[in-house]
């Protein structure tokens, strides 16, 4: 596991900030591009997300998850907020878009390991739950978009997503002993 940076960042250690940005900017930017589907909005969101990370660094608790999970949790929250506030949202972008495919960025060992564990849990879900969660959490599709794209009722999408996430949490053993979380 890579040495933790957030405790140093909470003390204003600028080299730790630079290293944190090097490790995580690629993923945060990639998530923002997928969810917001607009390069400019995505860049604005990435700036907001990292400011939130700096503000929240002192709350990081390594016993509750990795730094990658911490920054991803904050990123998702900010992206969800932006989607909710947006009056117009571009159509879902193909992941084959050239803008989404380019040179190697940092896919850290930590990210790959956490992703492998999560993928193993995803594989154990019912196929319909897995599909809905992948579209919702992986590609940033709304439940309405998912219902429309795979042709099932909205209520069914919601049900699959809810039960799928609850089951995942069980399988991943994610603890609930952090009343404040990364908020």
């Amino acid at each position: 596991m890579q040495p933790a940076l957030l405790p140093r960042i909470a003390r204003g250690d600028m080299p730790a900030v630079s290293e944190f940005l090097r490790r995580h900017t690629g993923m945060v930017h990639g998530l923002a591009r997928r969810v917001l589907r607009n390069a400019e909005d995505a860049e604005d969101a990435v700036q907001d997300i990292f400011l939130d990370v700096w503000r929240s660094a002192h709350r990081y608790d390594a016993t509750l998850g990795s730094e990658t999970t911490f920054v991803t949790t904050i990123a998702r929250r900010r992206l969800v907020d932006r989607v909710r506030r947006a009056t117009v949202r571009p159509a879902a972008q193909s992941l084959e878009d050239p803008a989404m495919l380019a040179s190697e960025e940092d896919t850290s060992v930590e990210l790959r390991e956490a992703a492998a564990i999560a993928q193993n849990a995803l594989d154990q879900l019912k196929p319909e739950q897995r599909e809905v969660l992948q579209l919702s959490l992986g590609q940033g599709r709304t439940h309405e978009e998912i219902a429309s794209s795979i042709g099932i009722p909205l209520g069914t999408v919601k049900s699959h997503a809810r039960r799928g996430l609850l089951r995942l949490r069980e399988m991943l053993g994610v603890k609930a002993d952090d009343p404040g979380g990364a908020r």
Partner: protein
Amino acid sequence: MNQSVLSRRDQLLVDGALGALEGPDQAAFEALLRDPTAAAEFAALERSAALVAMAEFANGPTPAPTPSPLATRLRDDALAFFAAQTNSPQSAISERPRKVVQFLAPWLLAALVTVVLALWRTPRAAQPPELARAELLATPSGLVRCEWTPGPSPRRGDVHGDVVWSPSTQAGFLRLNGLPPLDAGHCYQLWIVDAARTGPPVDGGRLEPGPAGREFVVPIGAKLPVQQPAAFVLTIEAADGVVVSAQEHVVAVARP
């Protein structure tokens, strides 16, 4: 939580973590989060959702590289953010009670140095800052000089100008134009990020926005010695200045 029929409470928590709350559910969800147990469950669900997003990201197509201007903005934002966090002896002491003596000694020394510097600068304070700046610029070498770039705050206006700083005399000036006017309850405050200092940045003093549409020069009032200035940051703060900034309004950043 995993019953055959999900309770309203559980639906709200899961929908919140999925980003799928709608209309009135949002208010009910926010009310629910006042319960620490519910908030903890929500945090765990959020982390579970983040793990799925991470898996999908890691298994998906290789992402586009981060645009270089974005990387620069992120670095500037970070500098500005940490610059705006002032050194707070009280909070530092409370975090490190066993280091009070070690902590106080450099502060006392710094305070003495600041007093000496202030006394040393006093005779020059009588001359207009524009002239004092020109004098400083005429000194042989070793000056730090950098241009202002816009900060992330929506209230940043259109700031132009530069910063000149002399590490040897610990004196410097801000040249500014385009600072938006402020109401009586606010002021601008300068912060100096010192790469040689492990703690938060140095308070560089408060300033008024200056005459509209005209350039003006303000002396820097660093409260502590600055060894390696890495950034000069202007924020909007409450009228009397702050000890701990909320970093809500960074209007300009100048990096050497």
